[in-house]
C-alpha cells in the first residue's frame, strides 16, 4: 500500500507551503523550499511503485532468476531517474538560496523577512 507515502508527501508539501507563508526567518523559508522539494520527490518515487514489483534491473540471467522466484512485475524505473534529477536540482537551489541569504545577512544585518523590503510599492 502506497497510501501512507502519498499522505506523507502531501503533508510535506503542505508544511513547506506553510513555512513559506508564515515563517519570517529567511533560513526557515529556505527550509520550507527544501520541504517542498522532498514532498515532490517522495511523491514521484511513489508514483513509480508497482505492487509486488521487483528491482527494475535485469539482463538475461537475472531475468531467469527473477522469473523462477515468481516475480512478474518490476517497479517503474523512470520516476526514480526523475527523482534523482530533482534531488540534484533541489540541492543546487538550496545552496544558491543559502549563499544569497548569507549576503543578505551581511548587507541588511538581519534575516527577518519583514525588514528586507527595500523594493516595494
Amino acid at each position: 500500500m502506497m497510501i501512507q507515502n502519498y499522505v506523507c508527501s502531501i503533508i510535506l508539501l503542505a508544511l513547506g507551503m506553510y513555512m513559506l507563508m508564515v515563517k519570517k526567518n529567511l533560513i526557515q523559508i529556505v527550509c520550507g523550499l527544501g520541504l517542498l522539494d522532498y514532498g515532490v520527490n517522495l511523491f514521484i518515487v511513489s508514483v513509480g511503485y508497482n505492487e509486488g514489483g521487483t528491482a527494475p534491473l535485469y539482463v538475461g540471467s537475472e531475468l531467469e532468476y527473477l522469473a523462477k522466484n515468481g516475480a512478474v512485475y518490476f517497479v517503474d524505473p523512470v520516476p526514480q531517474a526523475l527523482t534523482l534529477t530533482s534531488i540534484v536540482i533541489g540541492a543546487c537551489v538550496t545552496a544558491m538560496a543559502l549563499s544569497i541569504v548569507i549576503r543578505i545577512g551581511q548587507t541588511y544585518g538581519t534575516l527577518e523577512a519583514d525588514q528586507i523590503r527595500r523594493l516595494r510599492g
Partner: protein
Amino acid sequence: MMNYVEHFPALATMVLFLGAFLVTIFGGKNKTLRIFLAMAAATASFVMVLCVAKYVIIDGNIITYWLGNWTPVKDYAIGIGLEVDSLNAFFALLVTLTTYLSGWYSIKYMSRDEGGDYYYTLYLMLSGSVLGLVLTGDIFNMFVMIEIMTFACVALTAFRNWSKGALEAGFKYLVIGSLGSTCTLTGIALLYAQCHTLNMAQLSAMIAKVGITGNSTMILAFALLITGFGIKSYAVPFHFVAADAYMAAPASVSMLFSGMVNKAGVYGLIRVCYIILQTMGLGKVQTLLVAVGTVSMFVGVTMALNQHDFKRLLAFHSISQIGYVLTAIGLGTALGVAGGLYHAMNHTLFKGLLFLCAGAVYYATGRTNLNNMGGLAKKMPQTCIIFLIAAFSISGLPPFNGFVSKWMIYQAIYAKSAQSFGYLFVTVVALITSTLTLASFIKVTQSAFFGQSRPEFDDVKEVPGSMLLPMWVMAILCVFTGVAPKFVTEKLITPAVNAVMSVNKYIDTMMGAGYTEKITGSAATEISAEQITIGNWTPVMWLVLFGIVLVAFTVVAVFGKSSRGYTNNSKEQPDNKHATFFGGEMATRSTVVGSDLFWGFRHNFKGYFEKLEGIHSGVVNDYAVWAIGALAVFVMYLNAVL
C-alpha cells in the same frame, strides 16, 4: 537520410551550454576571449535557429529528433525527443534574437562590472535553458530547463549585488520561482501517474482518450501546471517578484527576462492548454485565462503609473503586456491566438528596446530614478528617438507594431463578446489599459528625456555604437512589424497558429502516422486554423500614411529654416528671447517631476492606489501567500467547473 537542418534544434541548444562551459574555463582572465566565446555561441545558435525557422515555418516541415536515436518502441516513447513545429520555431526565433542582441549590448554595458566571466556563463546558461525549453518535446526535460532558467535568472538578478535591492530581489525570485517549479513538477508527476509517459505528443493523445472533465487528478495536474507556468510568465498575482527582478538586474538581463523568460511561461501555457491537455475548447478554462490576463493588464499598468524608477516602471508594463497576451490566448479562437502571438513578438521587440534605453540612460548618467533626470534628449538624441519609437509602439499608436497586435486582440475579444457580456468589459479594460500605457510613457518621456536639463548632466554623452546598434535593429524591427503586418502574419504568425490549432498533426508527427487514430479513435486530420481575418486593414493604408508623413516632414523642414538664434551646442547662456518662459521671472531650474504628473487621475483613485501599494509590501511571505492562494483558487475553480 535526415536533412542536416534536423540536427540544428539540439545543436543550437547545446552550443549555448557549451559556450557557457568554455567561458567558465577559458574566460576568467581574458576579457576579449570570453566575449568572443560568448558571442560565437550566441551567433551560432542564432544562425542555426534561423535555418530551423526557414525549414519549419516557411517550408512547412516538422522536425522530430530523438536524442540518442531512442525512437518509440511499440508506441511508447522511451527517449527524450525534440519536436519543432512552427510554434516552437516561432518562440525559438524570439529567444535567439533576444539573446543575440543582448549579447551585443552587453559588451559595452557590462564592461564596467567585475566578474564578466560569471556574467557570460550565466547569460549563456539562461539563453540555452530557455531555448531548450521551447524546443523540447519532453515534459520532464521542459521542467529541467525551467529549473536551469530559474537558477540562472536568480543569479543574474543578484549579479550587481552592491546595488539597491539586488540580493533581496534575487532571494524573492528564488522563493517564488522554486514554488512555481514545484507546482510544475507535481503537475508533471500527476500526468505521469495517469499516462505513464513524459512525451508531450503521447501525453496529449492519452489525455484525449481519457478526457479531463470529471477526472480530478487531471484537473489537479492542470491547475498545478497553469500555476507553474503562470509564475514563469509573471501574470498577476505572481508578478511581485518580476517587478523586483527586472529592476535589480542589469538592463541587458532585464531585456532577456522580458524578451524571453516570460515568453517561456507563455509558451508553456500555450503548450499545456492547447496541446497537452487540450482544454482550450472549454469555456470555463477560457474564462480563467482571460480573467487572469485582464487583471494582469490593469494591475500592471496602474502600478506602472505609480512608479518613479525607470526600470521598475518598465517591469510593471511587462506584466501588463503579458496580460494582453494571456487574454488573447485565453480566448481560444484562431484570431485570438494570432493576436497573442503577434503581441508576444512585439512585446519582445519593444519591451527589450525600452529596457535597453533604460540601460543606456543608466550607462550614461548612472541613474534610474526618474525624479532625478531631465533634458537628456539633447545629450542623447539617438537614444531619445529610439525610446520614442519604442514608447509609441508599446502604447499602440499607429503605424508602430503595438497597434497591429492590439488591434487583432481587440477584435478577437470583441468578437467573443457576442457570446458573453463579460468580454465587453474585457474589451473596455484592454482599450483603457492602452491609454494608461501611453500616459505612463508620457511620464517617462517628460521626466527623463524632455523637461529642463540638469547641470550635472553637462558632460553626459551618447552611448557607444555597439550599444546603439542592437537598439536600432530592434527599433527598425518595431517599425517593420508595424507597417508590414500582412507579411509578418503570413510568414510567421499563421503557421504558428496553425500549429497550435492542429493537435493531432503534432501527435502523429512525433509518434508515427496513425498513432492518434489508434489511441483516441479519431483520425488525424489537419485542422487548419480558420481564416485569420486580421481585422479590416490593408498594408496600403500604412503606405498612404507613410507618404503623408513624409510630405509633411518635408514641409516642416522648410518651416524649420525660419527659426533663428538657435544654439544647440554652444555653452554660452542663451539670450532672453530663447530662454524658457517664466512669466517675467528669472529662469530658474524648475521641472515637473515624474511623480507629480497625472495627479488629477491619481487623486480620484487614491484609495485604489494605496491598497495596491499595500499589497506590494515587499515581504516575501506575502508574495508566497498570493501565489499559493492563487493555486488554491485555480484548483477549486477548475474542480468546481470541469
